[in-house]
């Protein structure tokens, strides 16, 4: 029978995805980029929409929310999973509203006027059944997938507007988006890149080898030399793990120091971040913001005698406040950090901020 067979197949896929997420985060499994995770999440959600039995939009949203909660719980630091779920929920809301025939503006934001005249929150229980809803939702998710495929290229296309010849550009660690950005600019311009290695994982080394193979002059420096070298740098271009709701960043550790050094020398700090990294989180949750990995990267077990008497910390992320950032470059163009809240309201519905 096709029904139950498809459902077990689906649960298998979901379980496989969850265990992949769990392993990838601890540094032992293969490291996957955020773009891959976003694509896989969206593909999985499309499959859920296609295969799970649901009769109204409300049911579908419940199913997606449930699966979404499980997926975010598997790897809380991987925010792209949660972001994609919220995007799909917004798609469902929009398609539902379109099917009902009401205009898009009606349930956009809550304004004071609406609150007063409608007498409380609008009654939207998503109970109506529309035959075309499933097809519309799946089509919209396909559009989302196409958008995801093209994000890195869209960002890289803007490179020539921001980099001119004979510039010295500094970056930290390894970001696939920044790599594509710099390689695209290198096709027409000659410039020099300084990469901070970002201990203890030293991903900067991979970035430097990759850039130099493409013909870009690269120099690797240690994290300690960031301020010393900053006086010679014209621009700082970095990637990030997440863009927070206030325009701040959750980026790899060492980025805050880099941002402070750039501010001191009045060097522009440009962040290349595709839209799927935008997350409605705020940075004030002390317990959930930081992620730590095994301290043996910092102080190896060979230092046996002092290991037991010393506390060792190995945080993975840094918070960078929005005042230190000059520009965000995303697949839909460039924005100032003060504009991020607006982009967020276009991508996600306020009721979905809490999954």
């Amino acid at each position: 029978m096709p029904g139950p067979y498809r459902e077990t197949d689906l649960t298998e896929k979901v379980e496989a995805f969850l265990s992949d997420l769990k392993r990838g985060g601890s540094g032992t499994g293969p490291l996957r980029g955020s773009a891959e995770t976003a694509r896989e999440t969206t593909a999985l959600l499309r499959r859920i929409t296609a295969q799970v039995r649901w009769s109204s939009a409300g049911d579908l949203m419940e199913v997606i929310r449930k699966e979404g909660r499980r997926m975010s719980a598997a790897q809380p630091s991987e925010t792209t999973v949660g972001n994609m779920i919220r995007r799909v929920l917004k798609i469902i809301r929009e398609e539902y509203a379109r099917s009902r025939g009401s205009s898009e503006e009606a349930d956009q934001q809550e304004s004071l006027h609406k609150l007063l005249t409608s007498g409380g929150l609008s009654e939207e229980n998503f109970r109506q059944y529309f035959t075309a809803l499933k097809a519309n939702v799946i089509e919209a998710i396909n559009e989302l997938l196409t958008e995801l495929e093209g994000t890195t290229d869209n960002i890289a296309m803007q490179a020539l507007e921001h980099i001119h010849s004979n510039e010295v550009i500094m970056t930290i660690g390894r970001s696939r988006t920044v790599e594509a950005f710099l390689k695209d600019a290198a096709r027409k311009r000659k410039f020099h890149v300084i990469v901070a290695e970002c201990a203890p994982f030293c991903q900067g080394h991979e970035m430097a080898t990759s850039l130099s193979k493409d013909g870009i002059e690269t120099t690797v420096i240690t994290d300690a030399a960031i301020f010393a070298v900053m006086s010679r740098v014209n621009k700082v271009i970095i990637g990030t793990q997440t863009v927070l709701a206030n325009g701040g960043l959750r980026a790899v550790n060492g980025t805050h120091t880099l941002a402070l050094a750039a501010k001191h020398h009045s060097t522009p700090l440009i962040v290349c971040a595709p839209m799927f990294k935008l997350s409605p989180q705020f940075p004030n949750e002390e317990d959930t913001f930081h992620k730590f990995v095994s301290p043996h990267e910092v102080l190896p077990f060979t230092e046996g005698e002092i290991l037991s008497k010393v506390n060792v910390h190995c945080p993975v992320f840094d918070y960078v406040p929005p005042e230190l950032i000059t520009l965000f470059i995303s697949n839909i163009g460039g924005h100032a950090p003060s504009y991020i809240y607006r982009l967020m309201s276009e991508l996600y519905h306020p009721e979905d901020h809490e999954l």
Partner: protein
Amino acid sequence: MKQMVRSFLTYSRKAPLTQQLSIPSAVIHPAIVRLGLQYSQGIVAGSNARSIALLHAFKQVISDYTTPSNEELSRDLVNKLKPYISFLNQCRPLSASMGNAIKYIKKEISNIPSQFKEDDAKKKLLNCIECFIEEKIVLAAKAIAKSSIEKINDGDVILVYGCSSLVNHILCEAFEKGRKFRVIVVDSRPRLEGREALRRLVQKGISCTYVLISAVSYILPEVSKVFLGAHALLANGYVMSRVGTSQIALVAKAFNVPVLVCCETYKFCERVQTDSFVSNELDDPDDLIVTRKGETQLKDWQQVPRLGLLNLVYDVTPPDFVDLVITDLGMIPCTSVPVVLRVKNVDLL
């Protein structure tokens, strides 16, 4: 930028030093040759350690010295020391503290009156060197420790960077006097000197935390004071120290944590410098290579034409990041360094 990196005098520790030098090591006193090799291999490292080793080697040289006939000790000995000093400079560029020590010795030698007998002159010189070490290094450390202990309160969380003999001394003294505090040791690749400081502090029984320099933004909200050592204090108020110090001061300033620099007065120098590029020391770039998970990314970096590795040793910290400098003459702001230099020069005249 690439030309700038290449134009620094780079060396690789793998090639034996004596093959690359222009002065034949046969005419150099063996104590100096040994010292030069110890410097270039990094066996003797740290500003104070290098100065003390230098002075001990010079004591050896002076004891073995005999004045040739028709020559005056005061002039000939100074000439004898010149090739030794350039030899040491080739092994590893001289530090500011070593430069000041050499200036002092040369002055003492030229002040020897000509009627002194050779033995008396040598005894006087050896005595001068002993005095210098005793006053400028050992007693200065004691004085600085005494003033610093006033700045350490119970319940403090103190952040230190790398391994400064002076800062370690201060912390051990404060711990012995019964102050209750804990220490956060920040370290950086490739030298990882912080582990040495960690060992010394843990042996004393001080409770320590250890992080790498990229985690300093995470750990700074817990910190109440930052103690930094210095390699030299420049005449425009900039602090020259191990690379990474300026970063720590920058982040501490952003979090409003006081930064205290501890430095003996014999490390004050007349030079001025505004950034870390105009004059710096380069270390072996191969130190940056690391093997993780069986892969060495930068293994053949020299074959790749467009890839360079930069391993700086020192950097300069602007005076606005430093709140206080603790010296053997008292606690002064960074901007008073030229005043101290002037006072010292007047004394020596």
